[in-house]
């Protein structure tokens, strides 16, 4: 129902620690934005500043047309779902749901209808007369979700809401939340969502767009496909994708028609599609190849690295092959059916990048220099 804007938002904690370094972020009306990043990168801090639970020490936060920096949480038109549910322990589920509306002095009938509607959507009708301590984790999280939903907020804020649930429940809650988001959109009251997680599966499956953070800086904001296919820097490249992208120190030289990458004593030529974008680049770089984009070939093949198999992980339909190339570790994902059964630990294999699927990052800044300029 409203867009959310962060303009140069900073946070310096009372002890002088600067957690957030002037971030800019636009979340469109009805958009599902995921904040993701390693532990301690200030995702929660950012979210709590939007919520008003943490003071903003620089920049401004706008919800709709209004700068909310100085507003108390209750007046920002937000609702928040906490990691450990934060249900009011002494209130029955029904009162937990209606507490916010009661504070706003909504008429009784309206509160009742709203409670019924929300508990219907979340299938918690039979839990309404229980206390929070009588709920399972999944049920408690649904109640917490209901408590947010019932207020029809402009912006929903989630702080790792699923991380206390087991894997199976997490998967079903994930679907429930995205379904709910779609449903609200279809009903013509789209909800703007900011969703914090450190789980990249959650991020990739739920987010319309994903904001990758590191140490209080935003590394990239993009939709999941872009993030995966065109990471802006080596951090995003390494953070998104399973298993992690192989990142190897190389030297880039231009002798002859095509640029050449040298890792240790081994050289490979860069595929033609990429060559044009690299003409300005030379010297030390980081080569990034996803494990899925490497092909196992005979050792010594032209245009391939040669290394020793150090470990083989069988995962069912595919196999993770760990290969050591002159001290650098590569992981290759090979479909089980295609793997040569004779390959074992200690064997020599060749690894060839598939076509133009490699990324080249500047060794110092980490910026991806191999992206098409568009």
């Amino acid at each position, binding site marked *: 129902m409203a867009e959310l804007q962060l303009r140069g938002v900073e946070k310096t904690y009372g002890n002088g620690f600067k957690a957030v370094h002037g971030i800019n972020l636009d979340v469109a009306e009805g958009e599902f934005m995921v904040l993701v990043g390693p532990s301690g990168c200030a995702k929660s801090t950012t979210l709590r500043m939007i919520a008003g639970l943490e003071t903003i020490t620089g920049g401004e936060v706008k919800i709709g047309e209004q700068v909310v920096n100085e507003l108390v*949480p209750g007046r920002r038109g937000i609702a928040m779902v906490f990691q450990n549910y934060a249900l009011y322990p002494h209130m029955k589920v029904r009162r937990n749901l209606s507490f916010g509306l009661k504070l706003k002095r909504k008429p009784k009938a309206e509160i009742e209808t709203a409670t019924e509607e929300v508990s219907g959507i979340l299938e918690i009708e039979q839990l309404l007369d229980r206390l929070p301590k009588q709920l399972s984790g999944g049920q408690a999280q649904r109640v917490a979700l209901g408590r947010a939903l019932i207020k029809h907020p402009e912006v929903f804020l989630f702080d790792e809401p699923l991380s206390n649930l087991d894997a199976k429940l997490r998967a079903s809650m994930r679907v429930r939340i995205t379904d709910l988001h779609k449903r609200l959109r279809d009903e013509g009251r789209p909800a703007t969502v900011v969703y914090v997680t450190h789980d990249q599966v959650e991020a990739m499956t739920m987010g319309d767009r994903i904001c990758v953070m590191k140490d209080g800086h935003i590394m990239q904001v993009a939709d999941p496909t872009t993030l995966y296919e065109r990471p802006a820097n080596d951090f995003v490249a390494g953070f998104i994708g399973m298993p992690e992208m192989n990142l190897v120190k190389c030297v880039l030289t231009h002798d002859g028609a095509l640029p050449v990458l040298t890792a240790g004593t081994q050289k490979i030529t860069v595929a033609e599609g990429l060559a044009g974008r690299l003409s300005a680049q030379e010297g030390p770089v980081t080569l990034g190849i996803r494990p899925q984009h490497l092909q196992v070939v005979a050792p010594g093949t032209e245009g391939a690295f040669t290394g020793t198999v150090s470990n083989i992980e069988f995962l069912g339909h595919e196999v993770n092959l760990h290969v050591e190339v002159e001290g650098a570790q590569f992981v290759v994902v090979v479909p089980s059916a295609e793997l040569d059964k004779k390959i074992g630990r200690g064997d020599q294999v060749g690894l060839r990048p598939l076509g133009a699927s490699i990324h080249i990052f500047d060794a110092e800044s980490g910026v991806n220099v191999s992206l098409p300029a568009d």
Partner: protein
Amino acid sequence: MAAFSYLPKHSGSGEREAPTQLEIKLRRKARINAALRYFLLAAVGLVMVYPLIWLIGASFKTNSEMFSSPGFWPKNPTIQGYIDGWQTSTPYTFGRFFLNSLWIIIPKTIGTAISCTLVAYGFARFEFPGKKILFASVIATLLLPNVVTRIPQYLLFRDLGWLNTFLPLWVPSALAGDAFFVFMVIQFLRAIPRDMEEAARVDGANTLQTLVFIVVPMLMPALISVCLFQFMWTMNDFLGPLIYLSSVDKYPVSLALKLSIDTTEAFAWNQILAMSVLALAPSLAVFFMAQKYFIEGISTGGVKG
């Protein structure tokens, strides 16, 4: 191979039916141990409660029997002590003194609960300039012997014209003057996560609403302990009323008991003891009524904090 795996199974099931010699021995030892432990505990417990039992028994004795027989069981049980004691040697009955006690205790206890909650909430949840120094001084008053402040306090209340009123007994507590209680509630609050309060703020509650609707219900066990302690200590407080109350019609039970010693030439011990028993009753009753919450309150406040 088959026989081998069969063997232990056989002996295992045999064991369950008939305990071995060793097992019987161990079991007997455990039983003796337990008996010994309980005997010791009961003996020590009895030593502790004996004065109380004696007190109750003696309150039914006649004054002449009091010191002539050492046992606690009265030979000729009589409630004369209660009847005479209740009448007192003053124009008032003991009922008056009980009412006075209540009239001191109830406002004081309510005041303590409210003020301690407010102060503890402030210290536990908010940052404000000078917080460290203020908190340190609260703790410092906790360490200060009560006696030290008696005289300055007396002078202060005299200048305010509060002598011979209940105000000096009420007001300090209603202004969170009992640092121990503040400290206890703070420790309890620290163990409660802030999430619920934050959720309430997001739900639109202001600070006071958060305190009343969210924090206080979660604090209940601690607050009940505070009220109980305050009730019992005030009931037993002797020095406070002694210093500030001068007219007999304002005397609480604790002073009235002393009164009956003062005014009778030959002490009517049976009356005194009978009234002591009555004086104990409210504290005991309140304690047993709230025992469950009380113990919960102390243990969570102490352990988690």
